[in-house]
């Protein structure tokens, strides 16, 4: 029974008609899923891993088209009539998605949405379906399920919504659960909980799980077998432990080596203090207005002190909403804040915009989103030299151009590309452009706000290396803000853990990772620990 293949994808091709012509997303792949096993389909963005499963479920966007065959117990899902398909879809094969915040219908209660597939596929009455829904909510460990049946999705957190999605997917005891990046949008600690839940449910219910993921940590922990995909093709497949131990294809090898490695040594003890914040506080007003009562005050950053020395990298770690990005901006005086901030001999806490202007060249910022942070209508050359217009206005156009060439070389881009526009570059290249824009001013302190989070692992690694080289060459100090512990560990020599605007724990990197004291830090580390172990084993 265990070896029976229940889902087989044969020579599947997926193409999309777009404004710029036909794009081949999946180029004739074969894969099998056996009853009860866990299969991982691994790849970076654009590898076609999601589209493969969307095609299998007949969920492609309207401009997409699939050919080949996807056979479930002998029936080709691609050619079934809608009625026949819907007897399989949602009943025998179900799917959960990456976006828990938007994957539930905002206009109906959780109970209503849970009961609908039960009633449809099992023909139960409303009362029985409700009892089933309740049982399912208990199964996925949602507290107070009775009350939650009446809740709307917007009243629940992302993790809870993903649990509801899982409950809906498992409602009809499926053979196969396809999980499309089910934890990517969630915070690390929640990720761990959801993955544990999936593993437990699989033990209990015995369905096969297809994990679509970019995260090798998940693959290693859960998968029996792995398919590695790259630009629409399967480049390697095999048993998980064999593949990890002895990868054959160079792309697989590259992926496995893509986790950032290395450690940063702390700066010498006598390194001068560059940037120092004492009891920094940032408050946001929420709501309020005419007849709406006084606004709510939210302390995004609550009395935090940071000391950054020359050549140091402080990693600021926390989950979304912890206030880590706000702290970074407040330290650069891009947001009004309370408390004192000193940069060298300057007191920044009283500086206004014009006082700050000359200091800006020494205090730079790199953003998370390499698509949003570059002005779409300027050429790359114009973008990276914009700071020079402010800080070295005497430069001629030719001199600025020369500096742009130099800066692009430094970040590893071809200077001949400087007259191109941002949309003509990939995510990693764009992030290099954003770094070049900061570096051209020869700053002393750079705040890096999740600079690698929007990038694929293999690109992340290159950016981390680039940042480290730049730091060594120019004796830079970094404030490295990230939720990604692997990257933070490779970049920083000192770590601050934040939660709800406060510092939970801080200390040298090895201490925090090796011997976390606070329970919150421990959960955070536990979520990342498997990955770390795995990385050491490679």
């Amino acid at each position, binding site marked *: 029974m265990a070896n029976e293949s229940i889902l087989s994808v044969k020579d599947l091709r997926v193409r999309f008609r777009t404004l710029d012509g036909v794009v081949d997303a999946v180029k004739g792949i074969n894969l099998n899923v056996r009853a009860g096993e866990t299969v991982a389909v691994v790849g970076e963005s654009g590898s076609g891993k999601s589209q493969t499963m969307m095609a299998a479920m007949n969920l492609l966007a309207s401009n997409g088209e699939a050919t080949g065959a996807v056979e479930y117990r002998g029936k080709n899902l691609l050619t079934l009539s809608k009625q026949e398909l819907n007897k399989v*879809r*949602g009943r025998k094969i*179900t799917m959960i998605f990456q976006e828990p915040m*938007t994957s539930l219908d*905002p206009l*109906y209660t959780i109970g209503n949405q849970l009961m609908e597939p039960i009633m*449809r596929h099992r023909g139960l009455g409303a009362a029985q379906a409700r009892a089933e829904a309740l049982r399912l909510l208990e199964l996925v460990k949602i507290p107070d399920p009775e009350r939650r049946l009446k809740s709307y999705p*917007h009243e629940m957190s992302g993790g809870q919504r993903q649990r509801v999605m899982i409950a809906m997917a498992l409602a009809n005891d499926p053979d196969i659960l396809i999980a499309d990046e089910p934890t990517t949008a969630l915070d690390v600690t929640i990720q761990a909980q959801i993955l544990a839940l999936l593993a437990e449910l699989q033990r209990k219910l015995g369905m096969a799980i297809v994990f679509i993921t970019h995260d090798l940590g998940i693959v290693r922990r859960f998968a029996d077998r792995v398919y590695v995909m790259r630009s629409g093709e399967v480049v390697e497949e095999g048993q998980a432990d064999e593949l990890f131990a002895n990868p054959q294809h160079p792309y697989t090898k590259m992926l496995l080596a893509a986790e950032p490695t290395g450690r940063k040594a702390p700066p010498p003890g006598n390194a001068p203090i560059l940037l120092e914040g004492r009891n920094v506080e940032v408050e946001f007003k929420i709501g309020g207005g*005419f*007849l709406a009562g006084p606004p709510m005050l939210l302390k995004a950053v609550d009395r935090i002190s940071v000391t950054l020395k020359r050549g140091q990298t402080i990693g600021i770690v926390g989950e979304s909403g912890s206030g880590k990005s706000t702290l970074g901006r407040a330290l650069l005086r891009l947001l009004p804040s309370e408390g004192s901030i000193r940069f060298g001999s300057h007191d920044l806490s009283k500086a206004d915009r014009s006082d700050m202007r000359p200091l800006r060249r020494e205090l730079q910022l790199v953003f998370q989103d390499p698509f949003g942070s570059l002005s779409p209508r300027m050429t790359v050359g114009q973008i990276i030299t914009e700071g020079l217009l402010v800080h070295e206005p005497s430069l001629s156009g030719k001199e600025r151009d020369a500096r742009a060439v130099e800066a692009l070389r430094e970040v590893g881009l071809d200077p001949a590309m400087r007259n191109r526009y941002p949309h003509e570059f990939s995510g990693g290249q764009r992030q290099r452009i954003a770094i070049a824009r900061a570096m051209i001013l020869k700053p002393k302190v750079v705040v890096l706000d999740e600079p690698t989070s929007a990038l694929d692992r293999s690109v992340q690694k290159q950016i981390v290396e680039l940042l480290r080289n730049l730091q060594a060459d120019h004796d830079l100090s970094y404030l490295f803000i990230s939720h990604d512990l692997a990257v933070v560990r490779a970049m920083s020599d000192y770590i601050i853990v934040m939660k709800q605007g406060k510092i939970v724990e801080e200390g040298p990197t090895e201490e925090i990772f090796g011997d976390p004291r606070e329970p919150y830090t421990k959960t955070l580390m536990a979520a990342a620990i498997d990955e770390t172990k795995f990385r050491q084993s490679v």
Partner: protein
Amino acid sequence: MFLYVFRRLLTAIPTMFVIVTLAFFLIRVAPGGPFNQERGLSPEIKANLEAQFGLNDPLWLQYVNYLKNLLHGNFGPSYNLPDFTVTELFAKGLPISIQLGASALALALIVGTVLGIVAALNQNKLGDYSVIALATAGSTIPTFVVAPVIQLLFGLTWMLLPIGGWGDGALINKIGPIITLSLPQIAIVARLMRGSMIESLRSNHIRTARALGLSDWSVVVKHALRGAVLPIVSYAGPAAAALLTGSIIVETIFAIPGIGRYFVDAALNRDYTLVMGTVVLIALFTIAFNLIVDVLYAFFDPRVRYD
């Protein structure tokens, strides 16, 4: 919810006040008066009339008096139709305008929504293109072209409909005006509906519903449509206010005795009270329908809560 409605009504008061004040003084600073258009009135009669209506009082006093009357629900007498008060004119014309406007709105909402859904479900196919073509035509061809063409075709050439007139509200007299009024609205509603339905059909929760193997009916009607009608609800508010207060073009061309024509005639004749009455009426309708829409919105969307 009650509190919210109460609060909204409360904020409507200053808005109304500003509108009334602005309109009052604007029309007064305009040159001319109700009795010195080329009417051939002798100076004595003119003076008498002006005295009778208090037009010789200082402007601020007239303003205060007008506000006082307004608070008692009294719009005053019409200067140009001296046998009627403004309220009487409204009582006669408003039901007619409302009948036509409400029918046109209902027609537009039903037909427009259906067309929009059809287009969205057949995106980039023949059905979609036909709806887009129809919507483009409906929103591009102005009313004052549509109305005479309808008269020409249905009234004169094929003799199916009367060319105009109200005919004591006979159905056959209403068909032309209602079609003319509703065509552009159908076009707008269909476009809005198509856009929001396509967006709704693309949303992640529809993908979930499909992945769960729900029926097409449930996917389209229960999950996609309910979210997609929200923009239509928002649009319907101001549209209702505009339609129910009459259309000058349609009422002129089809010779319908509604209130749509009062406004322009009154403004040109400086019939101050009638102008003011119309402004107040339109503003009241606008405020009321916007409020109704917001309340309706909360019924459609559980994320919207007023408290």
